[in-house]
């Protein structure tokens, strides 16, 4: 119908190495880069990552504890990558909903680690859970459960959100 350029295939589908693929996906995400998120390990449907402690990400200046929002962004991103890591043919995902339970505050001055597992990959929906911690997952800071829409960019043009018309 239109002459507009369709969205190019996702750049993180380019590499054959799964770890390199998700790392490219992170490099491609400005906000993930902004919080210093790194992916450290990957297996099919499972991803491990880290967000280094940084003073500008503090949510409580009195205690120096990292902001909940950083954990939200971290867990949302790593769960999305776990969904992609579960796919034979990587595509885009969009968060439908997520629920985070906070067991305790993160320890000030320490990096936050997390591991995510896509425990069900359907045709249109992926279900993922993850835990955040400093040392091991049996002493969690937070737990998240989320649902993702698969192939979320299908039918959407590149720069679709730049247009005046409502989507």
């Amino acid at each position, binding site marked *: 119908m239109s002459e507009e350029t369709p969205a190019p295939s996702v750049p993180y589908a380019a590499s054959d190495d799964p770890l390199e693929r998700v790392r490219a996906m992170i490099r491609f995400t400005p906000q993930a880069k902004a919080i210093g998120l790194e992916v450290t390990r990957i297996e099919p449907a499972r991803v491990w990552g880290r967000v280094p402690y940084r003073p500008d990400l503090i949510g409580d*200046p009195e205690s120096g504890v990292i902001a909940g929002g950083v954990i939200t962004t971290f867990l949302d991103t790593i769960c999305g990558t776990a969904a992609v890591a579960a796919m034979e043919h990587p595509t885009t995902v969009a968060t439908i909903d997520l629920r985070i339970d906070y067991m305790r505050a993160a320890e000030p001055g320490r990096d936050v680690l997390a591991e995510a597992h896509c425990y069900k990959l359907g045709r249109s929906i992926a279900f993922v859970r993850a835990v955040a911690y400093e040392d091991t997952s049996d002493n969690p800071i937070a737990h998240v459960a989320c649902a993702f829409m698969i192939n979320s960019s299908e039918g959407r043009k590149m720069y679709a959100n730049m247009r005046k018309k409502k*989507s």
Partner: protein
Amino acid sequence: MSETPQARVAAALERIPYARFLGLRAELKGDELTLVMPFSDHLVGNPLLPALHGGVVGALMEVTALTQLAIASKSERFPKTIDIGIDYLRSGKPIDTFARARVVKIGRRVANVQAEAWQGEKNQPIATLHGHFMTPEGEESAAS
């Protein structure tokens, strides 16, 4: 003590490094608070559309909920988050985002708060949040 609530809230937000990282600004009318997150390139999660990262939209709503609850409970300190649930309704466009929160109930130990984020039109929210937060009193009893 002569400070207006507006000034107190703005000052409290100003002291939070992460609120500055997001670029948050507070607007207070009476006891109703609107937080503004002006668009910035580092908030993007999907550069192809481009769309805001869901994490920062969630963070905006959580900070709004915490701040509105601090105002409602007349506390100088921000409450602690117990849990939050976030529903994403539309992708966040590369424009300014607003959020408001409603304190549904303040219990003895736990408060229930709902929040909404929107861009162009308030009746077309891009995301909603509901959360449970520990009241200052609840924290004291948990500590003892």
